């Protein structure tokens, strides 16, 4: 095989899944109805599971390096999915800024998932035919799950947009809050082996189809956008996520249960 994913690329894919999965897991026990609470917990679990697969692949790659001192290692001197998730600081994370933003209300949560899952769906479609067998397998598996996420979030965005004045206003507000962050999708700063131009066109067509059903104006790609996530320059929100998520491993190194 000629294509070998870089550690940065794998960590970027893993961080995206972990941070969004963690955010969605915050809804567990707080959903507006039992079915939706369970749906979000299931979706969160899908992302955390995908993160484990990407981190493990990254860890395998790191462990085959001559010098792995730049990466967090366990007591045996190995990188693992856990050392990568729990022992890196905010500036090491390479996730998109969009995914670390707080959940906000139901409109922000469902619209963010739609924007992100629609991007993920197109990305994973391309990666699922990648010549690297493990990349293709992880992508193929996650793709099926993400397809369900797109459908669920799409249904909610339409329902909010086509619902009451209040729900429509909230969806509008969510759009204005989230839209400046979508530009990071198309930078492809880590040079993933994908055709970004065709993805962008398909993504915008899909989103605008949902916007039309939601009585929202058609979205146009922003001329200026928030950026920095893939280079480790994050919003203030990421540090709070990590403080909560990593507390146990930081306070009790190598703790197991």
């Amino acid at each position, binding site marked *: 095989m000629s294509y070998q994913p870089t550690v940065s690329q794998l960590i970027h894919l893993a961080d995206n899944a972990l941070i969004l999965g963690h955010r969605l897991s915050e809804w567990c026990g707080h959903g507006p109805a039992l*079915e939706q609470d369970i*749906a979000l917990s*299931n979706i969160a679990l899908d992302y955390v*599971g995908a993160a484990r*697969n990407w981190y493990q692949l990254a860890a395998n790659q790191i462990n085959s390096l001559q010098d792995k001192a730049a990466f967090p290692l366990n007591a045996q001197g190995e990188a693992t999915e856990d050392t990568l998730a729990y022992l890196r600081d905010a500036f090491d994370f390479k996730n998109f800024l969009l995914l670390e933003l707080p959940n906000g209300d139901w409109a922000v949560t469902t619209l963010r998932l739609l924007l992100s899952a629609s991007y993920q769906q197109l990305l994973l479609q391309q990666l699922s035919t990648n010549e690297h067998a493990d990349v293709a397998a992880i992508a*193929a598996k996650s793709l099926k799950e993400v397809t*369900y996420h797109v459908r*669920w979030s799409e249904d909610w965005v339409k329902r909010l947009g086509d619902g009451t004045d209040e729900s429509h206003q909230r969806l509008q507000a969510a759009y204005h809050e989230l839209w400046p962050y979508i530009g990071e999708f198309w930078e492809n700063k880590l040079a993933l082996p994908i055709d970004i131009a065709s993805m962008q066109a398909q993504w915008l067509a899909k989103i605008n189809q949902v916007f039309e059903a939601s009585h929202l104006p058609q979205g146009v790609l922003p001329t200026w956008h928030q950026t920095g996530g893939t280079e480790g320059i994050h919003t203030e929100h990421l540090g709070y996520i990590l403080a909560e998520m990593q507390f146990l491993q930081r306070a009790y190194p190598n703790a197991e249960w």
Partner: protein
Amino acid sequence: MVTNTISEAYVWELLAQVNDPEVPVLSVLDLGIVRAVTVSLTANENAPQVTVTITPTYTGCPATDLIAMNIRLGLLQAGIPKVNIQTVLSPAWTTDWITPEGAAKLKAYGIAPPVGKSLDNAYLEDITVPCPRCGSNDTQLLSAFGSTACKALYQCSDCKEPFDYFKCH
């Protein structure tokens, strides 16, 4: 030629008795997650090593680790001392690999088996899921996400019974 006291066929028989922790009527073979079994004996070892290669079902399924442990325990209890569980990701598992016997067991257990093939993408279209209890086609989706990662929640409009549906994957 090495002399194995354990045949691969015997290991497959044992695996047929290892069940899924979430859907205990299904064995790991019914689920289609066992990809290969090999029995090997190296020169300076007196007990053969059994390697079972499995593939995970759902990405975030917490049962995956438990399934691997149950396989190990099942073989150890049958007196096989050296058990090695290997996980392969490729090719990715799909519900198409659930055997016809597995689908029948699911239905008898009250869980509607997957409708259609996952690879033709029809799994997201509006499918008809027959009620596993009364067989009626007049059923409706209550929630696309159910009690575990692999299931959706349906209700039968005829017998009124809510039931789990094993989603295409």
